[in-house]
């Protein structure tokens, strides 16, 4: 479903971004992206949701091709991807409920259903008591949970999670990874960039792709 052919994206610098990426991720793959800081994990994910386009090579997600995609098709692609950003990217001027609900409005859900779904998901992620908080008043872990909720709620075909447990306590981390695992078992691809090898161990059937200096060093 996701296909990288000889991709490079280096931000005009020698030692930034990624290069020589060849990769194939299937519709039901659970992939861990590991590697030291600055290895290029986030860049690889950005290439998938087409926040940056490759300088070289071809990225293909379903039938969206990086060399042919039109500006107005990018939102269509992104609506099918659940993204958890490393820096959360919550909307500061909206409360927790609104931050999560907007994901559904963007995908054109029905209002009544939206309300129920959002509250259900927030309760499930232990954010029920923070529904009306603005991000500034949340703890670090709570913010990350909201970011996760926003991605999971929209029933995407692939989930990209960039360091999704960096601010979570171990129990919450395991819960999140288990949820991702469950989603993966519903035949959705999941790609998690992480430094936490405890997580990696938790999903025994996962593929592990190691990056270093912008290149893939090993792939299982």
């Amino acid at each position, binding site marked *: 479903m996701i296909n990288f052919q000889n991709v490079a994206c280096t931000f005009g610098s020698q030692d930034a971004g990624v290069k020589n990426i060849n990769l194939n991720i299937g519709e039901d793959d659970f992939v861990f992206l590991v590697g030291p800081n600055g290895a290029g994990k986030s860049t690889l994910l950005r290439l998938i949701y087409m926040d940056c386009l490759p300088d070289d090579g071809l990225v293909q997600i379903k039938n969206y091709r990086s060399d042919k995609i039109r500006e107005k098709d990018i939102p269509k692609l992104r609506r099918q991807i659940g*993204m958890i950003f490393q820096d959360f990217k919550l909307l500061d001027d909206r409360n927790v409920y609104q931050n999560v609900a907007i994901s559904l*409005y963007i995908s054109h859900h029905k209002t009544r259903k939206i309300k129920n779904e959002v509250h259900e998901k927030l309760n499930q992620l232990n954010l029920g008591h923070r529904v009306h908080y603005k991000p500034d008043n949340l703890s670090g872990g709570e913010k990350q949970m909201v970011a996760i909720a926003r991605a999971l709620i929209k029933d995407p075909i692939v989930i990209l999670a960039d360091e999704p447990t960096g601010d979570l306590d171990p129990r919450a981390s395991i819960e999140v990874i288990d949820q991702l695992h469950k989603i993966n078992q519903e035949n959705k691809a999941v790609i998690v960039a992480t430094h936490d090898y405890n997580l990696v161990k938790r999903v025994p059937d996962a593929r592990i792709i190691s990056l270093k200096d912008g290149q893939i060093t090993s792939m299982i």
Partner: protein
Amino acid sequence: MIVVWFLIKEGFKGLVRSKFAGAFTILIVWITLTILGLGYIIGRDTINAVNSLKAQFDINIFIRESASQEKIQDFADHLKALEEVEDFTFISKDKAAQKFQKEFGKDIYSVLDYNPLPPSFNLQLKPIYRNLASVESITSDLSEFSVIDEIKYKKNFLVMLEKYQRVILYIITGAFLLLCFISIILISNTIKMAIFSRRNTISTLKLIGATNNFIRAPFIIEGVLQGFLGASLASGMIYGLAYLLNNHLQSVVQYTVELNLPIFAVIVSFGSVMGLLGSIRAIRKFL
């Protein structure tokens, strides 16, 4: 439909979310349109004042002593038929004597036992003919009449007025157009600035898959609301100032401002349209 409703609500909420930046946009629209409105009124009234000065311009046509009553009547009929003439009055010898008394402080009959002053016509032209070229052509036509002794008018007054009228008209029109231009620059840049302060929201929305229209709609609604609110405040302010002037400052400035509904309708529409176009233009920069 549900999404449309959501976006409209978001537009209204944006008024609050934009905080200081949104209030600032409203303030700018308010101030700008107040100035623009007052500028229009002052300009209009100044032009009117100049025109009413010009209304004082008249032509004096002195009739020969020897002219018969009949010939004078013929001439009067001719004047009446003239396209360029707005109005005229006949000043008989008696009236001329009264005028002499006013001008020279003497009763003519106390000096002489007859009246040497000639009768005359006092002529007002229609406004558009109150310029040197028209006046000269009319007077040269009229001077053909044998009843006429001489035609007098304040050529200097006319020349001066024509000159100043043009200056004033150019300056006022120029200033007003400049003001319009500046208002547009100011309002649209303020909106851009307000949206600039929320560019993070825009980029995040893009990243989570919102279409450009989805992002744009609330900002545009918000822009229109801000424009509308600012313009309404401006209308209120202009109305208030005019009311104050007309009702409480009459004794001081002796000047009455005339207001009518179209002025306010234009202001409010202008504000709203500026909010619309300004936000469309601004959001394009950050999409």
